[in-house]
């Protein structure tokens, strides 16, 4: 039987693991009886999801005034949440596509998990602009489809329309990529299924996949193509999200650094979310031999690197504001650091720039509780980054007579909390019903490590 002996380098799969062991440990999770703790977690996140539905219902039936948005702060909590959730998704595509093209084999144990996170995060993100438009039942006007005003079409010169295309394409392609990767594993679940209902459900979902060599040839090409297409796609998505800001003429938004700065921030926050969720999942489901300390350490290194890029971007923004000589631009940045929202700015700097510096130390990088806390703080920091960009730029722009302040209402806060409920609920369903580690890819990696 194919076993893997320990090579000189730190192995990506620990111990004497056979191919069948991989199937047993991954598929076994889906086939086992639902753990009590899963139900407890599901009850909690399900309740939060109901809170989200209640808040959105209240919003639609009462009016957009239940949110704290005002003039001048027309984009407030909702767009902050949108950019935050879209950013979370980016780690999934980075791991599944970019690291694949760079032949980073350590990605294999975590890509399925991260791709699922992408899809759920983009789902949460889409809710916010949908309700931000005020009349969500007319959101289809954003797409170039005939509507009741015959002859009226979207304005393709607007970054907001680019955003609609970028986010919907991103969601669709991520879903295709995820499903493509799932096909062989769904076939494994089908072949192991005992109950009739599992046989039918996994049988239909696996589309009759049988692992023929002729099929694998097209499959691998499709996978390579999707990786190649997703790579520029993921870079484009947050670039286009940043155009929503950068193409306007508002001080604090109108900067050319935004596209790379947003992409780095997105990867930073996404990896933080993968680490937060992964350390819980691997401990709870006993997957320490497949998702090893090396995987976690590598993700922490990515966080350190992208955190440094983000910190550099914060510094450059200030430098350019000063160097431009534009008094409005200078004011916008002084107001960020010293104005009424300075607490948000310094929370952001502390969480995003200072905390990841601890990852320079190997002891911290390989300490599970430490990385869990740091990754949570990075997520807090990255949420505040979007809040700072949006709210501090809008609340004091040009004329002091038009200045204002933004305070979130209880509806704003509960909607944000509810979006976490939806995200985590989808995640719990994923770990319960689908294999959270790509079995076929781990097996292929083991076979090639053995041959090497």
């Amino acid at each position, binding site marked *: 039987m194919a076993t893997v002996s320990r090579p000189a380098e730190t192995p990506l799969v620990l111990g004497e693991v056979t191919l069948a062991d991989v199937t047993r440990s991954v598929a076994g999770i889906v086939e086992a009886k639902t753990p009590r703790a899963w139900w407890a977690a599901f009850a909690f996140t399900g309740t939060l999801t109901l809170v989200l539905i209640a808040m959105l219902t209240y919003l639609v039936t009462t009016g957009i005034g239940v949110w704290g948005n005002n003039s001048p702060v027309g984009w407030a909590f909702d767009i902050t949440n949108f950019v935050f959730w879209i950013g979370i998704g980016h780690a999934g595509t980075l791991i599944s596509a970019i690291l694949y093209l760079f032949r980073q084999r350590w990605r294999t144990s975590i890509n399925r998990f991260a791709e699922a996170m992408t899809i759920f995060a983009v789902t949460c993100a889409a809710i916010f602009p949908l309700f931000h438009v005020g009349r969500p039942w007319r959101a289809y006007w954003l797409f170039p489809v005939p509507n009741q005003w015959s002859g009226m*079409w979207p304005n393709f010169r607007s970054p907001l329309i680019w955003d609609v295309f970028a986010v919907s394409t991103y969601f669709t392609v991520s879903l295709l990529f995820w499903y493509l990767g799932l096909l062989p594993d769904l076939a494994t679940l089908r072949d192991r299924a005992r109950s009739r209902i599992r046989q039918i459900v996994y049988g239909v979902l696996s589309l009759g996949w049988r692992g023929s060599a002729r099929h694998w*040839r097209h499959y*691998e090409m499709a996978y390579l193509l999707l990786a190649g297409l997703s790579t520029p796609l993921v870079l484009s998505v947050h670039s286009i999200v940043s155009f929503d800001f950068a193409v306007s003429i508002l001080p604090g938004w109108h900067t050319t650094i935004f596209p790379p700065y947003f992409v780095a921030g997105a990867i930073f926050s996404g990896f933080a979310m993968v680490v937060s969720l992964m350390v819980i999942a691997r401990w709870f489901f006993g997957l320490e031999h497949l998702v090893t300390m090396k995987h976690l350490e590598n993700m922490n290194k990515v966080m350190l690197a992208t955190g440094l890029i983000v910190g550099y971007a914060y510094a450059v923004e200030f430098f350019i504001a000063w160097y431009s000589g534009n008094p409005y631009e200078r004011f916008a940045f002084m107001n960020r650091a010293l104005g009424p929202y300075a607490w948000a700015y310094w929370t952001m700097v502390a969480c995003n720039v200072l905390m990841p510096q601890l990852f320079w130390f190997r002891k911290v990088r390989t300490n599970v509780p430490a990385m869990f806390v740091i990754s949570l703080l990075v997520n807090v920091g990255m949420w505040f980054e979007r809040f700072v960009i949006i709210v501090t730029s809008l609340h004091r722009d040009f004329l002091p007579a038009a200045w204002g302040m933004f305070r979130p209402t209880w509806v704003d806060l509960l909607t944000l909390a509810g979006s976490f409920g939806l995200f985590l609920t989808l995640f719990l369903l994923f770990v319960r019903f689908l294999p959270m580690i790509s079995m076929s890819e781990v097996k292929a990696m083991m076979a090639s490590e053995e041959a090497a």
Partner: protein
Amino acid sequence: MSVEQTATMAPRVYGVAAEFQSPAELLEAVRKLRQRGYQRLDALTPFPVHGLDEALGLRRSPLGWAALAAGLTGASGALLLQWWTGAVAYPLVVGGKPYFAWQPSVPVTFELAVLLASFAAVLGMLALNGLPRFYHPASNHKRYPRVSDDGFLLIVENDGPAFDAARAAEALRAVGGQHVEVLEE
């Protein structure tokens, strides 16, 4: 089973399959069988086995061309859409900008190219593989459930009237195959 028998007996023989224990054994068996003149071989494996394409004499997948064609269709369709809606069907002055220019058309053009190319890659893969398909003769092999776990099945396919299942089974045994079974359609 001889040629005459297969011709008169229903159901038709799809091929003969045997199980191997590792990718290395499978590759070795494929090479030996091809030397013996068996050209229509297929292997069922739990993961893509490196070198199996070459051993089986499979050509490179043409899927890239499908994705390229779809991507170009998406890009040109997006440009046409933006030009026609912006400059012909619904010309609207916004900030004194031209009705159509290539620069602001780049994002949507790119996104639609990626979208269509991705659909072509996935749907093209399914079409070339003849999926979805919910029955296949190989699933009659009693070790079939293992190919999605840790088993490797090698199938000598029925390639015409000259095919002799008994001889194929013998050849599979000779190269180390276990659980040799004749697969019926």
